[in-house]
């Protein structure tokens, strides 16, 4: 239920304070309410997306492959968070995407099933695949209904009496205990002009679910200037920033008319076919993952080179344009940092530096050449690489990952395998900021899986 700050007489009854109401925060809140436990959800935005809130709070200076327009457009500050605009593409990470995580893909499997069901899919979308062409498997994306947590998908959560939602309120600071083993107090800025101090009691936990930028921003802002910011003793907060490089129309695949990719069974639901390197091809490319969406397009009869290739394939063929969604290497120098100025709550303004590595590009080229060789060797088809689109036309997916990285070593990470900030007994993080590496899969299914796992860990404790 929605509450006003004046209605809250005591913070004592809450078992947790959850910061942010996107897919991550909503999922953690749901785990608590299922056990009849109470939470307070604090959300910067209103019930609907408002431009002035966006303009005041979603300001990020971008350098590198993504500019100052890019990041703010991909961080929605309203009930339901960025799920207000997401496109509903889903796919789990695979085991090879998690080799440097302290959690295994196997441990996440049941949570992925949970996430699939929560987001309205059959859990089989996580495992179904079929042979594509030698060296590449057909692993479609699921593309069903888009769960918007500010709308229908969040209704049951936000209306539940165990969940108190405080809108237009922003957590601007976490205050560590003297010994820095936990959080003793948090500051909430309630628009337009009220600062509220909330003491965190021994039975309470704080969960940051503020998005890939927001989680790092809160930590980076939590310092009085005399000590390192909360969770930042080893200067890891904000580092390893990742996106998913998207290369639209980076190649043409022409295949014989008689060749057909397998269609997933009806239970898969709406799908987007994609070729993904098999493990051997993946290893040969250096371990960075990628997927190649197959979008059927008409052949171009005016293109005489295409016509000659069709002739070579026996005269009857069809064409696909390939859209690549790829992984970028986790690099500590890609990072968000505080810069001069604050948002209205007092949180520091951020600069995001994000630059793809030359090897990220090389891997994609490697895959396209390998795919071309594979289909030519089998005489199934031919691949034409569109160099321009690969090197001058890259964009992202609105996926902000890695800024509060999960790992077992505090020197190279911010949270442990339970998503707890290293050293802080009562501070946890939900969201793609904990991803150790990003894979190529859209992040929300993994966000929901990890948040459900965290919710179980916290909600099941008492």
């Amino acid at each position: 239920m929605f509450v006003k700050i004046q209605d809250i007489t005591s913070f004592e009854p809450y078992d947790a304070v959850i910061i942010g109401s996107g897919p991550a925060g909503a999922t953690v809140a749901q785990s608590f309410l299922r056990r009849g436990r109470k939470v307070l959800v604090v959300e910067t935005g209103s019930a609907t997306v408002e431009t002035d809130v966006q303009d005041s709070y979603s300001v990020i200076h971008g350098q590198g492959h993504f500019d100052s327009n890019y990041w703010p457009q991909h961080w929605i500050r309203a009930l339901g968070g960025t799920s207000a605009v997401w496109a509903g593409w889903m796919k789990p990470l695979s085991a090879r995407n998690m080799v440097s995580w302290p959690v295994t893909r196997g441990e996440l499997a049941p949570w992925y099933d949970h996430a699939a069901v929560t987001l309205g899919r059959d859990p089989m979308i996580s495992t179904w695949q079929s042979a594509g062409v030698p060296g590449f498997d057909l692993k479609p994306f699921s593309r069903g209904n888009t769960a918007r947590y500010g709308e229908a998908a969040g209704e049951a959560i936000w209306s539940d009496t165990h969940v108190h939602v405080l809108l237009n309120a922003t957590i601007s600071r976490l205050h560590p205990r003297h010994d820095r083993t936990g959080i003793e107090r948090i500051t909430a800025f309630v628009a337009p002009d009220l600062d509220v101090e909330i003491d965190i009691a021994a039975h309470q936990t704080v969960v940051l679910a503020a998005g890939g930028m927001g989680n790092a921003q809160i930590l980076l802002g939590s310092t009085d200037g005399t000590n390192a910011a909360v969770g930042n003793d080893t200067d890891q907060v904000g580092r390893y920033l990742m996106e998913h490089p998207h290369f639209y129309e980076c190649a043409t695949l022409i295949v014989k008319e008689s060749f057909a990719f397998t269609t997933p069974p009806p239970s898969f639901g709406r799908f987007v076919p994609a070729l993904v390197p098999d493990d051997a091809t993946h290893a040969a490319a250096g371990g960075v993952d990628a997927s190649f969406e197959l979008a059927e397009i008409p052949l171009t009869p005016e293109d005489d080179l295409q016509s000659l290739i069709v002739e070579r394939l026996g005269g009857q063929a069809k064409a696909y344009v390939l859209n690549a969604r790829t992984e970028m290497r986790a690099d500590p120098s890609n990072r968000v940092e505080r810069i001069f100025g604050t948002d209205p709550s007092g949180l520091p303004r951020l600069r995001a530096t994000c630059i793809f590595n030359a090897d990220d590009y090389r891997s994609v080229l490697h895959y396209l050449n390998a795919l071309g060789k594979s289909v030519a060797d089998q005489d199934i088809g031919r691949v034409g690489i569109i160099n321009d689109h690969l090197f001058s036309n890259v964009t992202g997916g609105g996926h902000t990952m890695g800024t509060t990285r999960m790992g077992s070593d505090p020197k190279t990470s911010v949270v442990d395998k339970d998503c707890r900030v290293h050293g802080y007994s009562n501070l946890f993080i939900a969201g793609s900021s904990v991803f150790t590496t990003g894979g190529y899969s859209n992040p929300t299914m993994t966000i929901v899986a990890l948040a459900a796992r965290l919710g179980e860990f916290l909600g099941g404790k008492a």
Partner: protein
Amino acid sequence: MNRRDVLFGALGFAVGGALAAGTGLGYMFYRRATLAKAKGRRTVVSDSLDDWVLTDADRTALAHSADQAGPLMMLNNVDLPGAGDIRSAQVTDVAECAALCEADANCNAFTFARPSHPKVEKRNKCWIKSDQTPPKKVVDIHYISGLRP
């Protein structure tokens, strides 16, 4: 569609202004780029032969058709004045002009005047030339020339 149509078919627009400028004036027949609109999408540029991952057999087949077409280098929007005119003829298109050159052992270059030429008497005219290293290449949108490299 015969081999010649395939190789010459798209020529008129294939070596378009932006591409010709971007790639220099010379452009091998078999290295054309064509612009194709895929339905409702951005323009897809299917670029030169080298961008395709091909088999050796593909290359032999394609090179063979390029050979038969004559190893002429295309010079779009270029006139070759004073390059040793052997003769001239009235033709229907650039392909016919190139064919006359190919069929003539003494021909090392040709120039075709587009139907858009301002002088009526020059429209669709084809000059067969003997000079393989022409004294000058004059950029003029009313002409297409060809040259043995």
